[in-house]
């Protein structure tokens, strides 16, 4: 299980990285972040990039900062760093909670926030989180930078709006009020989940003022549970209204099956975990009628 030969460069700035990417666009150049998804794919020879541009020496991508109400996370921030960063605990506790479900600690020590989002595994946690939080993804290329909304970013399994010659530099997450919850069902600890649920629910005097819910593992890309969000908003949540919201969301799902769970099982689990996610978010949102 060894990769085929490849060229390798380790630039120290974003400018240099995009220049290299541009120069080797014809060579199937790829960014290398933590390598926790890309390197196994190369070992299986499922990915055979001719040129690897290692982003690990680019200081400017490893920072976490707050700009007003927006949390800005550099693409190369390690997952384990983000998991325990105070800025993220305050600015995006949903992300911190979700990171605890990403693989195992040694993998999170290498894996990056940006790498997980750029990789866009349909079962991954972070894509669902950025979708639920209406985050923005900043992309840098030879022509400058552009910003893509999470809702427009994920275009298919393992594919995103990142153009050839571009790298993901930042994740911008607006601060959200309300209770959050990330819950997921995986067959074994640290493995990819069958279903993940990212939820933020804001209450106003016991009534749901705003609900954002995203699911992973049930479609080729992470999806917003719009039907559940709409069903919940404006209600005083109780078991019946939660069940109605869950049913509304599940009715629209048609997950693909695999060895870990067929379509029906995944649907069953989505139903269960949507409820658990909404209940947990509500319990953290303040008093519930």
């Amino acid at each position, binding site marked *: 299980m060894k990769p*085929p030969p490849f060229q390798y460069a380790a630039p120290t700035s974003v400018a240099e990285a995009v220049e290299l990417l541009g120069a080797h666009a014809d060579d199937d150049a790829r960014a290398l972040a933590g390598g926790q998804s890309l390197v196994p794919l190369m070992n299986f020879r499922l990915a055979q990039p001719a040129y690897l541009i290692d982003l690990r020496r680019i200081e400017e991508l490893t920072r976490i900062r707050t700009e007003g109400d927006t949390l800005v996370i550099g693409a190369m921030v390690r997952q384990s760093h983000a998991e325990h960063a105070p800025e993220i605990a305050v600015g995006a506790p949903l992300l911190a909670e979700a990171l605890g479900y990403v693989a195992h600690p040694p993998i999170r020590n290498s894996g990056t926030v940006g790498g997980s989002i750029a990789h866009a595994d349909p079962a991954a946690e972070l894509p669902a989180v950025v979708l639920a939080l209406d985050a923005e993804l900043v992309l840098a290329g030879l022509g400058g930078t552009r910003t893509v909304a999470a809702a427009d970013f994920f275009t298919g399994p393992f594919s995103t709006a990142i153009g050839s010659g571009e790298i993901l530099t930042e994740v911008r997450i607006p601060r959200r009020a309300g209770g959050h919850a990330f819950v997921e*069902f995986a067959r*074994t*600890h640290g493995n*990819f989940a*069958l279903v993940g649920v990212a939820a933020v629910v804001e209450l106003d005097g016991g009534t749901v003022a705003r609900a954002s819910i995203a699911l992973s593992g049930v479609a080729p890309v992470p999806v917003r549970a719009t039907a559940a969000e709409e069903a919940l908003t404006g209600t005083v949540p109780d078991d019946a209204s939660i069940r109605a919201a869950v049913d509304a969301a599940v009715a629209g799902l048609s997950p693909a099956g695999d*060895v*870990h769970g067929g379509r029906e099982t995944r649907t*069953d689990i989505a139903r269960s975990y949507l409820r658990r996610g909404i209940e947990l978010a509500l319990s953290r949102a303040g008093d519930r009628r």
Partner: protein
Amino acid sequence: MTTMDRPDAPPVRTHKENRKWVGQSIRRVEDPKFLRGRGGYIGDMTVPGMLHAAVLRSPHAHARITGIDAAEALAAPGVHAVITGAQAAQLCDPLPDFGPDPAKHTWRCLAVDKVRYVGEGVAVVVADSRYLAEDALALIDVEYEPLPAVVDPERALADGAPLVHDDLGSNCAYERTFDFGDVERDFAEADVIVTDRLRWHRSGGQPLETVGALADFDHATGELTVHTNSLSFTSYLFMVAGTMKIPANKLDIRPVPAGGSFGSKLFATKPAVIAGMCSREVGHPVQYLEDRVDNISNCDHHGSDRVYDVRLAMMRDGTIRGIDIDTVEDYGAYIQFGVGHHGNALAQVVGPYAMTSVRYRVRAAMTNKNQQGAYRGFGSEVNNWMLEQMVDKAARELDLDPVAIRRQNFIREFPHFIPTGNVYDSGDYDGVLDKALELSDYKHWRAEQAKAREEGRCIGIGLITAQERSVFSATEFWFWFDEPGAPVTSMPESVTLKVDATGGITATLYSCAFWGNSPETMVAQLVAEEFDCDPHDVAIVYQGSKNGLPATGPGGSRTTVMLAGAVEGATAKIKAKALRAAAHLLEANPDDMEWVDGGFQVKGVPEQRKSLADIAVMLHLFKHSFPEDMESGLEDSKVFDHPYTTMPSADRKDLGVFYPFMGHACHVPVVEVDLETGSVSFLAYAAVHDCGTLVNPRSLAGHIVGGTAQGIGTALYEEFVYDDDGQLLTSSYLDYLIPSAMEVPELKIGHHETPSPYTLHGIKGGGEGGRMMAPAAINVAVNDALAHLGVRVTELPITPDRLRAAIRAAKSRESG
């Protein structure tokens, strides 16, 4: 009911009291080297000029090979050779095969004109590095003509199925029905016949280091030296020489620590042959180490894969009369060990229960999957699971308590011959059960279960009582046939003990590389017990197969019992010589002397004494101090044969004694089932094992924990899944799920000691117990959690898909 007279049992032994080292949880003597990364695995080995081999795997489940073009690969950088299957067939004979009719299901190191499963090797590349070898693999052009695949064992046996081996004429490699005892009468007189259909899917041992070999063929001497993490047992390795077409005395196979085997490296000759063949071709040492996909798809050691149709003859009071078992086993594309897995099952087919008859029908199906080999339990664990599901079902149908029905049927007199002819040497099943009920807090959990049920939660308790056979006889591999090809009966194990001039002791072992068990610790403790030394002072070395003494190697939980016998025998010879020497030096009568605390002394006169070191230095260096006929040195060996096996009867109504040292265990997992997701989690887990006299309680506990973890994998997670076209869907750990420390609960472990009357100290084998119990216990627990909903799971592993399907079916039955 037997049609033959039973030979006498061996004499009943009296066991030493006040043992000093046997029974102590000493630290394992192997630990320091492994914990320091100094174990020396295959991947650590490198020798000057060493090249690397990589194998091209078939992407097809079943296809004819119509052409291979390796020219481009051969021209690639760093490539020394490309050997195709057809070329390999010229260079080597078929691999050693104990199957029913090897000429009709011929197994070679690389496929020749047809591939029979995804992952089967079709060519091997030798290059300067494994990277370059894999680059070259990508350049080999193989033309395949795909054939329809057969992946379901029952469909494989049906008319019109595609043939895995044309020469076999069908996909049934073996079929026979055995009757033991009066089956007809037991079933005719039964009040109730409990029936079920059960399905156990395949999983396998997952060693940290895969199987590998470093081979070096010396063209000057014609000798082949192979370092491999399989076995180095002398007793059968001449067969590898046969495959390599070299004389047996030109082959030396040297043991390397296995990094885990769990059976899966048993007689793993293919990597050694591939490396040896490549080395002979290129004239360099060659390392071939499977990668993970090679191992999962092509290791030849997948575990059991069975369909059962079972009937249990019951009396209304709970007495079990007999069992009628009809099983189809999916062996995959080859059948290297024949149906030996069912010999294992027959060794303890009735469990701890005193039933009087057994009907056993077995059919071995060939399919387009990797073949079966060995996996901790070797097929007996599947029988344990089947039997306990049946007893559990009987208890439910007859409305009997699960503890009571088991206790009611326990065998209580020993030695006990079961209907198949095997003997259970000793046991105390009530004692184990009592301990387990207490250790598991059984009553408490029954109360918790009732409480939880009121809250709508599903808690289940899985009490099972089952057997753990140990120390096999080779007869179980051939008693299947009226005219067996090779009815061998030897299963020896040897040890050489050498006392050097300073009194230091070195033990030489002949087959037992470390492969997850602790042969060095066992031998060190046993030697220390004999010589009153510190076990950590005993040096252990391994002899390769060349010049090795007869040895069969680990397997069937035989290592400790067999090594103990060999150590005892070698010790007796050394002590006899040492006694004579000491008596001579002290001018005493040997009859007046005794062994006390590490030396010989005149009885009652402790000043008149020679320590082992005193004697050793004299024997090594002072020839003239002894009579002429006393040879210098102090070293001896023992070839220890199996202490208790007997031949099968000619009509095979009695299979003889073939697995006599019978351990026993009771496992009690407490699980909670999440109805919504079909997942199972553990609330508690207690296990009590009786493996006779304990040599090292802590290392046995390690076996129990590790085996139970594997059993949890078998019960809930692990499965080699092949789709309908024979594609392997679980070729890496992304999809083949192994339980980690997060999935395995903390175990409460209890030991019970019922010594064997026939072995040194009363030791029985205990290497496989955890995995022989856990799948049965967990299945019973899950069914106990769901019985009130009418759900009964009959298929392992219990995945969310299977469990949810069963729950949905029960719900729709209820509403419909």
